[in-house]
């Protein structure tokens, strides 16, 4: 074998790569693993229906996606960040620091967060936010006292629930879903049980009390899942007593293995979420770097296609998969058309 030949080919490869490291022609997207399924459906349809190349959609979580989004402007940064939470001031600060000044926010619809367990497991069929808080909160109110959570079984605080050990698989902190879980379930439960007022009464500041409300027990009773819902599903399957937090679409794809619990008496369906009856839902977003529109081909077309009535509307493929379509889609369409950017400072 001739080493000269090998080395020559190596150099050739290097030369080829050096000359063509230019001009990206596909849209590059990263972010929330909750938005990823929808983005991949739209990306496939975009590639099928337009002459643009199919966009590349990566996962990684809302915060990771926004961080990459805010890395700067240019071909080697992403064009669109998917997010299952609104953009925060800390993200905006990072963006501004790196010269990303014009950001278009696009709300694509709503997603429900459901509590589900093994279909043959204990009868976890109805929860209140207070139940979840009493089971999973680090400090709870027992007999008028704020104490470290003493409950080991669901029946310890609510006789209607099964006498089974408490185990819950909840989204990890890098997921946007975690924030919704904290705000719409733990915080609500904390206030409903009176723990929040009791904490204030012990002299805690409001901020500290809020932090204490959303703190979870850990210790194997709450398990943070940093991966996808498939990991949560695997944990539930290995753990008959476990309760897991899923996206509505994921649950609907796995109704043969999961039973879902109602929240405050409302069953999670696309209808109850669209009507605003089911309490634990959140909007899903993506953010566009305006500086990339017109530079990277297809960015605006992709965004417009994503929120078109045919795609994100109530009869479109996204709703078919489980997205709760946004009643104010028309306003979003107009905002994208006009490239309305966020007012940021």
């Amino acid at each position, binding site marked *: 074998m001739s080493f000269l030949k090998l080395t020559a080919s*190596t150099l050739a490869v290097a030369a080829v790569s050096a000359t063509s490291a230019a001009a990206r022609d596909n849209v590059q997207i990263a972010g929330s693993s909750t938005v990823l*399924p929808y983005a991949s459906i739209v990306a496939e349809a975009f590639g099928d229906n337009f002459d643009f190349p199919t966009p590349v959609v990566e996962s990684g979580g809302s915060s990771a996606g926004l961080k990459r989004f805010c890395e700067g402007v240019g071909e080697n940064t992403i064009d669109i960040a998917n997010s299952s939470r609104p953009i925060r001031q800390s993200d905006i600060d990072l963006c501004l620091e790196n010269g990303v000044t014009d950001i278009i926010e696009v709300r694509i619809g709503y997603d429900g967060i459901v509590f589900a367990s093994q279909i043959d497991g204990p009868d976890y069929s109805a929860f209140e936010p207070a139940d979840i808080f009493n089971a999973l909160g680090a400090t709870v109110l027992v007999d008028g006292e704020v104490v470290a959570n003493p409950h080991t079984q669901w029946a310890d605080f609510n006789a209607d629930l099964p006498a089974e050990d408490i185990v819950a698989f909840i989204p990890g902190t890098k997921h946007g879903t975690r924030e919704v879980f904290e705000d719409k379930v733990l915080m609500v439960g904390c206030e409903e049980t009176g723990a929040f007022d009791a904490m204030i009464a012990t002299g805690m500041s409001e901020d500290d009390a809020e932090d204490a409300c959303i703190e979870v027990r850990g210790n194997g009773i709450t398990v943070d899942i940093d991966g996808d819902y498939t990991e949560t599903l695997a944990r539930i399957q290995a753990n008959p007593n476990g309760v897991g937090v899923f996206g509505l679409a994921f649950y609907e794809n796995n109704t043969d293995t999961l039973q879902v619990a109602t929240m405050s008496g409302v069953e999670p369906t696309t209808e109850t979420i669209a009507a605003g009856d089911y309490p634990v839902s959140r909007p899903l977003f993506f953010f566009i770097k305006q500086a990339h529109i017109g530079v990277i081909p297809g960015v605006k077309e992709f965004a417009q296609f994503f929120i078109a009535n045919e795609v994100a509307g109530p009869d479109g493929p996204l709703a078919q998969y489980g997205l709760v379509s946004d009643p104010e889609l028309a306003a979003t369409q107009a905002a994208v058309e006009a490239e309305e950017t966020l007012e940021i400072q």
Partner: protein
Amino acid sequence: MTDLSSTEPATHRSLKVADARTKKRNAAEKRFRAYGIVAIAIGGLFLLALTYNILKAGLPAFTQYVVELEVTLTQDEFDAAESQMLKTAAYTDIFIGNFEANLEERGVEVPYDGDAIERLLGKVGGDIRSYYRENLDDIGQPVTFQLQTSSRVEGYFKGRVNRDTIVDSRFLMGSDLDIVDALRDAGVLTSRFNWAFVTGTDSGVDNPGGAGIGASAIGSFFMMLVVLFLSLPIGVAASIYLEEFAPKNRLTDLVEVNISNLAAVPSIVFGILGLSVFIQFAHLPQSAPLVGGLVLTLMTLPTIIISTRASLKSVPPSIRDAALGIGASKMQSVFHHVLPLAMPGILTGTIIGLAQALGETAPLLLIGMVGFVAREYPDGVVSGFMDPNSAMPAQIYTWAARADVGFYEKAWGGIIILLIFLLLMNALAIFLRKKFERRW
């Protein structure tokens, strides 16, 4: 014999009758052999269980259930569909309309409605559109399409969906299964080998039937090219220098220790390195097989250097001495005599290193090759290196994380294909070793 036995002492031990200590030693040996056999049996059992599981879960991915239908698309229909925003949906509607229209004449006499037919079919619009866009002459001509059924219908045939446990949903109703059975009895719905899975590209999460591993296999191929053409010359040159030319001093010791250490560094570390050096500093494109190949090269280099040095070492010194003795220069002795003899070992080490790199996922997570990436085939060599693509293990990882169980089956099917590639590479390694092996 008689002489010998007569000279032995009174405590004579017959060779034919074992005494207590011999028995003990023999028993120990027997036990050890038994342990060995048990160990191999356990290993074999695990291998069998694994193979069985992989084949059981993965083989269904190679079967596809399709409905057959002759469609005549008029120019008007084509223009109308092309003028829509969601063109693929328009083609799906045309197909469903045609499908319903002639079901009765084909012997399907079960009541149904359009929604039911829509639930039974997979994402067919994209296939139809791309067919007509490539074959414009076929507009107005009858064309027979074989198009995929939905993942729930496939699940029904593959045992995932059961009549007794089916939960009515917008994906599939219990009553739809009657239509499915009728279609099958009428010969409209048939099964065939799923070429789309072997050669196709990734698909959206609502279209497990359209998912294929072909594009990501191409991505893996281009990555392996980069690894081969970078790590083989660099690795071999480094090993030859270190083994044959370098003086033995503290510096080379340090280099050696570091190479051994690098071989044990977790691959994700190379991924982070690749992200910061190749993408953020050198501005190479994200998700490109070139970057993946560079990262995997870093990972494979220590393996290749170590195995190359071992095979250089195994060439007897007498061969070098003989070459030097008849007047060859040091370099001539290495390149004319030592290297050819070490070649089988070097090739084996390289192929094993490549096989390792082929199955690696962790570093690819960080350079953007995991997600919805492997959607398009590269147009040529440059595009193969530079355009976003995935790799086989990354594709399998992506599928395993999707909600629809149809993708889970695809992930296992992907594992089978990946294993076939690995087996082929290992077979090549064995073949090369046998072919070039020299004895002295």
